[in-house]
């Protein structure tokens, strides 16, 4: 049957299982919007195209499916750049669809013409320029396949206006992907498994480094089997949180720049690192020259380009994590590693049993308290926490205990401020039954807060917890440590967030006291619509411990003794 490129576009998206897209219209994409009325797909109107990309990203991370963002040419497309780069760094499968000027006008600097495939070349897994209606179907199918297979990532499809308007014969079955060079499905050689078994058998002090790849591959069960069978403790990356239950006795917690001291010491003292779906980012290794220098390394990773990139490994098992672990597990021997686990317990000392909940109420409100209380209140639910970037993000990672996969969504690789609110919207659209909380700094919130309007227009119950410290807190912390407290350009004069929320039609609360935290959270949960809580926290609080950029992983700036002493008082 003959259809326009625009009709084919929506029909292909439907066939790929798309129920929602996040977008913003404009001239070059208007033919597509015109054809939307015949589609079953629900379009969420965003307030800025960056928001659309983060929503698509949040949608993808909440479910494992592909998220879709739509924008017009020129400024619409360039507004997507930050969201695309964010998705690229965190291997999130999104497909971005942009309108482009007519194919005859390409190269002429026509109104709103931007070479968006050129711009996004290094920040997409792949991208396409479509100039004919008859290329639409195959391109969409390829884009979905590339976005979600192998190491997932963003794919952009730029469709000229005439390709949307003109007609051609539409045949889904004939429009099959043609990707002769694309190899997403690698698997290790048998001898590589043998080497891995050997290293695991001989190790006295092994650690599993659990990363985002576990969630992407759906290998939570297998990782747990490996840890339990071989008695191996598990340290997690920021994006790995939730891949291994926080309450599991073998869970050490988050590693890296703001990981607890015992986690980083365990890694430095290990004789074997088993890295699962993580890429030895500089935020988790610290100085590479001194990183786990006595440890052999096994790297299970789907992307061969990650092998030996930052850390040289002894055995690389390149393939899908879940499949690799299925092969690996049967021959992993049960070993008692009591001595090693006892040693780690001693490293933990009393800090592991210290319970922030029991810290005396000094009259000040600390972000850590807010997050810990929020966790206690929401831990039993089907909760998804979406964080922005900064101190609050690290406190969330430290004090919210994630038991479930995909219960934390955060921008790790790019560290994109402004991510949380739109990504939370995407997560809520994807999982309407989940309780979604955006935990966001007073700085980052103001980067994308216009999406409050999207929350209201879509009638979404997304809760917003602003950790309001009156500063670009994480930058202030760096200035405190490394720039002699020269607080240049970090104090914030903020609007009245509560009033702002009310203006959008979102209920709001101000919280200044520790005692008000739990009632506020409970009241938000009971409310049928979205709620914004403005937590006015201690202004010059600091995230501890901290490995300074470039320092060795074991050289941490520890919590000052005043804090530790208070903890010992309990």
């Amino acid at each position: 049957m003959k259809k326009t490129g625009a009709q084919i576009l929506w029909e292909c998206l439907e066939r790929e299982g798309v129920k929602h897209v996040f977008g913003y219209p404009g001239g070059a994409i208007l033919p597509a919007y015109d054809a939307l009325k015949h589609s079953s797909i629900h379009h969420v109107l965003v307030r800025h195209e960056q928001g659309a990309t983060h929503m698509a990203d949040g949608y993808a991370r909440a479910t494992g499916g592909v998220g879709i963002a739509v924008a017009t040419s020129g400024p619409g497309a360039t507004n997507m750049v930050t969201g695309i780069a964010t998705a690229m760094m965190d291997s999130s499968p999104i497909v971005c669809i942009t309108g482009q000027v007519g194919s005859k006008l390409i190269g002429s600097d026509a109104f709103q013409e931007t070479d968006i495939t050129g711009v996004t070349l290094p920040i997409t897994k792949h991208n396409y320029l479509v100039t004919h209606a008859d290329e639409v179907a195959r391109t969409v199918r390829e884009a979905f396949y590339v976005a979600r297979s192998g190491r997932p990532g963003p794919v952009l499809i730029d469709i000229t206006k005439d390709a949307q308007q003109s007609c051609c014969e539409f045949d889904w079955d004939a429009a099959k992907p043609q990707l002769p060079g694309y190899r997403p499905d690698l698997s290790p050689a048998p001898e590589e498994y043998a080497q891995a078994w050997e290293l695991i058998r001989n190790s006295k002090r092994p650690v599993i480094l659990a990363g985002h790849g576990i969630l992407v591959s759906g290998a939570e069960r297998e990782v747990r089997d490996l840890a339990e069978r071989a008695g191996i403790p598990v340290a997690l990356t920021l994006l790995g949180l939730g891949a291994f239950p926080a309450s599991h006795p073998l869970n050490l917690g988050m590693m890296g720049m703001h990981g607890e001291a015992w986690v980083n010491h365990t890694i430095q003292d290990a004789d074997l690192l088993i890295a699962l779906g993580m890429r030895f980012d500089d935020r988790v290794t610290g100085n590479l020259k001194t990183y786990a220098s006595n440890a052999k390394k096994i790297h299970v990773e789907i992307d061969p380009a990650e092998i030996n990139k930052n850390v040289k490994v002894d055995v690389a098992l390149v393939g899908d994590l879940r499949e690799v672990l299925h092969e690996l597990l049967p021959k992993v021997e049960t070993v008692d590693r009591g001595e090693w686990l006892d040693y780690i317990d001693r490293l933990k000392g009393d800090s592991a049993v210290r319970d922030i909940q029991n810290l005396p109420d000094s009259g000040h409100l600390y972000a850590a308290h807010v997050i810990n209380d929020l966790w206690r209140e929401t831990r039993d639910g089907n909760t998804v926490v979406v964080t922005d970037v900064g101190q609050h993000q690290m406190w969330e990672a430290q004090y919210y205990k994630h038991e479930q996969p995909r219960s934390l969504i955060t921008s790790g690789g790019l560290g994109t401020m402004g991510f949380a609110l739109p990504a939370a919207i995407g997560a809520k659209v994807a999982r309407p039954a989940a309780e979604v909380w955006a935990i966001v700094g007073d700085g980052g919130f103001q980067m994308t807060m216009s999406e409050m309007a999207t929350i209201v227009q879509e009638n979404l119950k997304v809760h917003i917890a602003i950790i309001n410290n009156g500063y670009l807190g994480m930058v202030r912390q760096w200035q405190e440590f490394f720039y002699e407290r020269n607080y240049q350009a970090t104090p914030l004069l903020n609007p009245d967030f509560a009033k702002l929320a009310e203006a959008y039609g979102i209920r709001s609360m101000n919280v200044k006291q520790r005692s008000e935290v739990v009632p506020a959270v409970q009241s938000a949960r009971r409310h049928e619509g979205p709620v914004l809580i403005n937590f006015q926290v201690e202004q010059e609080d600091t995230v501890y411990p901290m490995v300074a950029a470039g320092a060795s992983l074991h050289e941490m700036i520890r919590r000052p003794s005043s804090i530790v002493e208070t903890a010992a008082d309990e």
Partner: protein
Amino acid sequence: MLNTFVVYVENKPGVLTRVASLFRRRAFNIDSLTVGRTEKPEVSRMTITVDADYDQARRIEANLYKLVNVLLVENITQEAAIVRDLAMIKVAATHEARSHVLELASVFRARVVDVSPESLTIEITGAEDKIDGLLDVLRPYGVLEMVRTGIVAMRRGSKSSVPLAPVNGLAQAAAAGDEDVSCSV
């Protein structure tokens, strides 16, 4: 160490940019890059030389494979290969110098392809060091202009690295539907 990669890519618009952009993005410095047609119209062949140690070379290969349009990558640095560069060299050659220049050209088995009262243009094909050698001896006469193509390379012997025959077959396999796409070579 200078590594030589032979890279087969889909002959589509923008693929050269993708490859070049990858080297720039990962901060690898391309020494030379040539691209041309192969016996299959849908496939182009690149010869890329780049300064890299062993691990870097491995990562370049892996990163090239991440480009969706790349079909096959071979690092032939350690293999017996025929490597050829082509140069055209315009040398100042007035009356008395002319016979010397001609003699040098013939020693290097180079050909004179253009003659003018003031100059000779010499074409030479060969390994890079042979061309460097000719250039060295011509320089005293005055090199007016010079252009080199960059190297092309091919393995010696009957073994072909060519993924070409199965390319269409692979496209068919990939076409079998998303679930059962087999994209491995």
